[in-house]
């Protein structure tokens, strides 16, 4: 069902699959490693500070063929092996271009050998893509391709003396496999031999073969010269499509700046500076904030301003909403609502009337009669709809980072479609629910918008209001959670739930310490739980995973790793929570 949500375009599904594959291969060994699809035109994969970049396609293996799909996994596994087993970046020093190529080749062979030792199937995956033959043209690149094959595939036979020598050295029991220094030694050694053969070699045009291998910029302290022409300009020209943990790069942070875009400077780059909204403020409340550094709650620290929801920008009717969320997802939500309602049917035992005799009660009545006691006449059982008896508050993170694009849409558009669909579900199951959103601009201005109040009907204008969500400013999560908790405080229901949608950790302009607001948010969550509220968070994108887990706990958070599927996923997450 999830897969059908958004049709996979241009092989993006393969990118997500490759990202999951890398995650599983690394098994958490190197923390969060994003996997990205490089812009069209990049023919070799590479790793840099942003993550691992895979070519969009492998035309040499056919367009969309099974082999091309395997090549992408082979490339992903190869880069993962570098990440897993690469121990250092090498200095090029006085190495000549031929030696650099050979050192890289030995390093490829080394990490592949170590990876295949753990997971033997990887050797098969890679071996299939090696096609070099002893009969190939006698050029240096061709020799390299043969050598690569010889070092990976034991059964490959090649009489070339260089290859024999390389094999002997590489498979020697004393060859140190643990470090790239071993590769450096073999590469420079063999480079001398190859140099004497006077083979044709143009370092400018050299591209590594087979195509699944990376361009080695991850290995060398500065990129090898030939890589510059090929990938760098393209990389800066296009905005890459991110399929890894962070779905999309904000424009402007792309490119080899050499710096990880620390925290994306969420607070510092407001998309829309809030217009003067005091006119719309309906009231404000102050809340304490927990300062973990001194272990004290600062009283009346944050001011939450209650804003009336924006008036819908454009009129429209229900048909627009169906177009907005998509007919497929809407039908699925209707179906889900029906399932939930069916689940609500419960048996009422010991009923005065009903369609079936309650056996226990009937027997009890017989026993009583025989004992000479007046029997209880409530001996029937009937099936009735149970009220789930919930109050749900959907709380949307409207901070500026939700303007980040995911393919053609912004995160916030996905959030708003998800909110509308969840609203349809909650309305369909007859739940008491509210939809609120928050953003902040320092502690004195935490804006809280109420798109739908608990007691308000779910109507076309509400849906339109949600359709027209706009991102703004920062994420002061703790204050918003406290305010949401207050909204649910007077509500008498068996279960009260705050369901928070957020794309990351809280942050704000006046909180330079990145741990400060997360600590406060965790405090705010604990306060609500003490009051008997359930607080559950849905993280938007894998990058949000660690943050939401820390703040909300393992059992009260989950992550939607493929954001484009969020509208479909949210109603199902809710259904799973309350079933």
């Amino acid at each position: 069902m999830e897969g059908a949500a958004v049709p996979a375009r241009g092989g993006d599904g393969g990118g997500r699959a490759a990202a999951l594959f890398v995650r599983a291969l690394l098994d958490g060994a190197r923390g969060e490693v994003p996997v990205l699809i490089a812009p069209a035109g990049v023919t070799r994969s590479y790793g840099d500070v942003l993550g691992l970049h895979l070519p969009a396609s492998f035309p040499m293996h056919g367009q969309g063929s099974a082999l091309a799909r395997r090549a992408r996994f082979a490339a992903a596994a190869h880069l993962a092996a570098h990440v897993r087993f690469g121990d250092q970046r090498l200095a090029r020093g006085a190495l000549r271009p031929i030696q650099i190529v050979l050192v890289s080749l030995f390093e490829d062979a080394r990490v592949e050998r170590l990876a295949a030792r753990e997971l033997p199937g990887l050797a098969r995956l890679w071996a299939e893509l090696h096609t070099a033959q002893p009969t190939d043209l006698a050029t240096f690149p061709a020799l390299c391709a043969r050598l690569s094959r010889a070092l990976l595939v034991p059964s490959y036979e090649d009489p070339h003396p260089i290859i024999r020598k390389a094999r002997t050295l590489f498979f020697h029991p004393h060859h140190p496999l643990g470090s790239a220094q071993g590769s450096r030694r073999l590469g420079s050694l063999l480079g001398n031999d190859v140099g004497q053969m006077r083979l044709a070699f143009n370092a400018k045009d050299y591209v590594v073969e087979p195509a699944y291998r990376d361009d080695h910029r991850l290995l060398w302290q500065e990129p090898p010269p030939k890589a510059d022409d090929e990938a760098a300009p393209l990389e800066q020209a296009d905005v890459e499509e991110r399929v890894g943990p962070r779905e999309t790069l904000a424009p402007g942070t792309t490119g080899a700046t050499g710096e990880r875009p620390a925290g994306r400077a969420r607070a510092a780059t407001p998309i829309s500076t809030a217009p003067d909204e005091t006119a719309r403020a309906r009231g404000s409340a102050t809340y304490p904030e927990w300062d973990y550094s001194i272990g004290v709650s600062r009283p009346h620290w944050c001011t939450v301003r209650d804003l009336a929801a924006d008036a819908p920008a454009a009129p429209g009717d229900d048909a627009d909403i169906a177009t907005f969320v998509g007919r497929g997802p809407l039908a699925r939500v209707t179906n889900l609502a029906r399932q939930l309602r069916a689940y609500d049917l419960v048996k009422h035992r010991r009923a005065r009337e009903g369609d079936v005799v309650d056996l226990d009660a009937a027997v009890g009545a017989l026993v009583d009669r025989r004992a000479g006691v007046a029997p209880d006449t409530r001996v029937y059982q009937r099936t009735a709809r149970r009220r789930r008896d919930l109050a749900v508050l959907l709380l949307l993170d409207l901070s500026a980072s939700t303007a980040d694009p995911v393919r053609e849409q912004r995160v916030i558009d996905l959030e708003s479609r998800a909110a509308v669909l969840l609203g349809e579900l909650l309305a369909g199951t007859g739940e008491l629910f509210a939809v609120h959103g928050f953003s902040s601009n320092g502690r004195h201005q935490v804006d809280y918008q109420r798109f739908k109040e608990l007691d308000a009907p779910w109507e076309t204008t509400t849906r339109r209001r949600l359709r027209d969500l706009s991102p703004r400013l920062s994420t002061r999560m703790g204050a918003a959670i406290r305010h949401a908790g207050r909204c649910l405080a007077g509500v008498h229901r068996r279960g009260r739930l705050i369901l928070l949608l957020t794309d990351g950790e809280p942050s704000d302009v006046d909180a330079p310490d990145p741990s400060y607001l997360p600590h406060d948010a965790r405090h705010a969550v604990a306060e609500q739980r003490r009051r008997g509220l359930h607080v559950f968070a849905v993280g938007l994108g894998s990058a949000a995973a660690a943050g939401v887990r820390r703040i909300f706990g393992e059992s009260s958070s989950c992550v939607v790793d493929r954001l484009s599927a969020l509208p479909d996923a949210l109603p199902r997450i809710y259904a799973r929570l309350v079933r």
Partner: protein
Amino acid sequence: LTPVVVAAPASLAGDDGDGGGRSGGGTDASDPLRPFRIGDEPYYRAAGDEVTLFATAYAARVPIMLKGPTGCGKTRLLEHMAWRLGRALVTLACHEDLTASDLVGRYLLDADGTRWQDGPLTLAARHGAICYLDEVVEARQDTSVVIHPLTDARRMLPLEKKGELLTAHADFLLVVSYNPGYQNVMKDLKPSTRQRFGALELGYPPADVEAEIVAHEAAIDAALAARLVALGVRTRAMKGHGLDEGASTRMLIHAGRLAARGIDRFTAARVAVVSPLTDDPDVGEALAALLDACL
């Protein structure tokens, strides 16, 4: 109403601790627990000190909560311990419609009137078995309250309808299982229920131990078992990222069993591990590539 105290015969005769094999009146035809006795030793490979802890908790009659993800060996540990301690094991899978009568018992009609039928909990408490409530969160909270008097110092079970106050047999112990990864707003254990138990946390065992378990249970060679475990461990890295849960030990054993019967290992792992785990095509593709890499 005078409570009828049925004090069970105290067979405390010194076999409190690790009995080291089955004991305790197994073959008697009149033994009401006969169907619940465990004949042969259920295989269990301990990954930590859980066997000792369980045995000690049993000796001290501390009710036990087994916590852990699905298919990690909670039920098997319990079967093994029941066998080891020489106790019958009465298991009940909890569900939403479970009523207190389902646990405690009810009157049934027969030719001359009615007859009382002990429920599983009563049966275990009366005759001294280990009573296992599997997935206890699935039961409604008001239902699980009936276990309260059995799990504190009183060790009693009031049979209200029968007018009997049953004192639990000295051998009786209540064990529940619980998957902490289960995310649900409607279902959780009340603190008053939770605090009656000592909790043993079971996770998936370390890779080498898990491989040993898979090899034993599926009757496959160690090399194939190690490969299946390598796959299982890596699917668990995808938990929360496309997968709700990684592959359980049980799944890996299923794959091994298929392979042991002549299905090639790739197909076996696809049928028993990859396909059951996900319907998402992307996740499926990643798992398929992972399967090829691991096997």
